[in-house]
């Protein structure tokens, strides 16, 4: 079983590699978006398209990361998995919030004043996802005891990811036909010269997501290590505590 120090070393190396990827991709991304032709109907508002869908992938990836890490924590009981779960939830919430902010800005621009929000299937789903994320973070902060909070949060994270396909299915059954063609042709309706910035946008924001995820993960690992060192200093007789969390 690896010690937290080894985990941290590996995370530090990945972070450096990812940081370079982001640093190279970001200017390219900005340049391609600026260079992309203006949409004949929506004008400059259409450029939100290069930001909004990639954010959505980040939000879903965050949730999946949280659920997988939560499952691993329940199975193996290693603290490091729980720290990945927290990172997934926090970075996912950030991406989800940004997506919920950029969506209505585009909607108002495309559909006219007063159309900030429409109860469309995908919008509703994202909003629900956001609420599940918030509930997850609340559960963490309201539960006393690190190990218990980690266990409860893992359970909720797994429940949350099961909820995504269920919600998809139900909303499709119940209200999917309400706005049949508003977002459906969004990605297929890319005009000449719009494909490249869209692709670069997806790639860049994916790397940004992974970078932030690993960064937050590393902060969690380092924080736990600091706590451990401090508690060892306070109680030198007991020696160093093991890196695993008891899962009983």
């Amino acid at each position, binding site marked *: 079983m690896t010690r937290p120090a080894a985990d941290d070393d590996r995370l530090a190396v990945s972070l450096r590699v990812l940081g370079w990827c982001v640093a190279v991709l970001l200017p390219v991304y900005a340049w391609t978006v600026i260079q992309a032709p203006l949409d004949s109907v929506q004008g400059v508002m259409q450029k939100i398209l290069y930001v909004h869908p990639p954010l959505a992938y980040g939000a879903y990836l965050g949730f999946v990361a949280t659920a997988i890490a939560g499952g691993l924590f329940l199975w193996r009981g290693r603290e490091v998995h729980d720290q990945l779960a927290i990172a997934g939830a926090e970075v996912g919430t950030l991406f989800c919030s940004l997506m919920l902010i950029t969506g209505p800005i585009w909607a108002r621009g495309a559909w006219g004043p007063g159309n900030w929000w429409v109860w469309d299937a995908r919008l509703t789903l994202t909003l629900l996802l956001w609420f*599940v994320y918030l509930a997850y973070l609340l559960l963490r902060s309201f539960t006393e005891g690190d190990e218990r909070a980690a266990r409860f949060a893992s*359970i*909720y994270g*797994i*429940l949350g990811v099961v909820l995504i396909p269920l919600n998809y299915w139900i909303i499709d059954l119940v209200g999917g036909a309400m706005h049949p063609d508003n977002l459906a042709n969004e990605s297929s309706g890319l005009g000449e010269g719009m494909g490249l910035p869209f692709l670069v946008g997806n790639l860049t924001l994916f790397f940004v997501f992974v970078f932030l995820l690993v960064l937050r993960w590393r902060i969690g690992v380092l924080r736990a290590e600091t706590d451990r060192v401090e508690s060892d200093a306070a109680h030198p007789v007991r020696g160093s505590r093991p890196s695993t969390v008891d899962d*009983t």
Partner: protein
Amino acid sequence: MNVALTLLWKDLVTEWRSRDRVVAMTIFAFLVVVVFQFAWPGMDREEIARLAPGVLWVTYVFAAVIGLGRTFATELENEAMTALALAPGTRGWIFLGKAAATWVLITLVQVLTALVFALFMRVDVSVGLAGSAAIAALANVAICSVGTLLSAMSVRSRFREVLLPVLLIPTLVPVLAAAVRATTATLGGDPLGLSLVQPLIVIGGIYLVLSFLLFDYVLDE
């Protein structure tokens, strides 16, 4: 299995002697029904009939949240939770006993609420009575499964009264949506087909199995 049956019996007997959960849930549900009356002054019968399934299910879910919040509250006294955790066998059976008892109580409250609702809102429930009952019975499986799991978690957190609805309601959205859809169809006179109950069976089944398995990690006593 015996653990589940014993717990079911224990919870029902405790409830029969105190009747606090059922009374609280029923009064709350009646209150919500009456409050909705003020939310739509002067609405005609057709409009009310159209809104009825949604309002009824929102009332059911709110009442269920009240009842689920108390599922494990009594177990906190005298360290009864530790005694529960010491029960032989998989801890999933503890979950099943608790969930079954809550299912009985919630269903009872729903029957009473539906009667009052039909009376106050002048909705003709005789059309789809059996269908609506079957829908409620199925939806309650999902509500009680995930509700019991989350209740066991929230009861040992700070702000447990706030935390349970915040955790529970997002997970109940698909159940609510499927139940409202099916109830609307049956109250409208349609026969209760497989396509209407299928989502409820699937969600109920998934939630039941998942909660049964995950409950093992909830008790740490």
